């Protein structure tokens, strides 16, 4: 299964500079790999699972996409608070950062939540947490894709 192979061993993976160790690679290869890693991290953030899909890690891509999508659908369905840029306090600003972590799914959540948030009940409060969890999980997945591309992780 391609998902089991480290990135350096997958012949069909995104071409990264082949080097025995990061220290022995030329500076140009480092820069190219860093730029590629940033692009893959941005793709992973924008669409959950896309970063790992570009790295041909299909299992991880599917897991990232489905878990983030499920959390967003549940969070919006439970009428959780989707924070906007105009947050008044530090918690609202932090919530906005966490919600932005889902990338394009932020707009999906807003579109799903037609009746607006309702945090007067525990259900809506849980929804807020699920939405924030989706964002943080997606940021973690993007960081993982970044590290894999830089050959720091398999």
């Amino acid at each position, binding site marked *: 299964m391609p998902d089991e192979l480290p990135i350096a061993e997958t012949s069909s993976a995104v071409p990264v500079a082949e080097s025995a160790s990061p220290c022995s690679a030329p500076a140009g290869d480092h820069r190219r790999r860093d730029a590629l890693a940033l692009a893959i991290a941005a793709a992973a953030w924008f669409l959950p699972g896309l970063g790992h899909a570009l790295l041909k890690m299909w299992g991880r891509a599917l897991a990232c996409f489905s878990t983030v999508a499920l959390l967003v659908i549940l969070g919006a369905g439970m009428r959780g608070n989707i924070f906007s840029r105009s947050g008044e306090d530090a918690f609202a600003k932090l919530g906005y950062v966490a919600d932005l972590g889902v990338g394009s799914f932020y707009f999906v959540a807003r579109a799903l939540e037609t*009746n607006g948030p309702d945090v007067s009940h525990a259900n809506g409060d849980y929804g807020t947490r699920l939405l924030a969890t989706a964002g943080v999980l997606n940021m973690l997945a993007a960081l993982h894709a970044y590290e894999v591309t830089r050959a720091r992780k398999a």
Partner: protein
Amino acid sequence: MMPPHEFRLSHFQAMVIFALVVSVAFGFLSRRGAYQRARYILWSFILFLVIGVGIGWTMYPFSH
């Protein structure tokens, strides 16, 4: 009437879904191989539930 895409979950249902989804994501991101992943997911899921229920019971005396 509740719209079709709205969900009403109990505290326990929300915790179970949260624990399961986060465990699956952690398992796939941090482990390789089906067996290692399954073990990690199961272990993480159980710990989420046990610690969540444990914290709930710990707070119970202070709620009265």
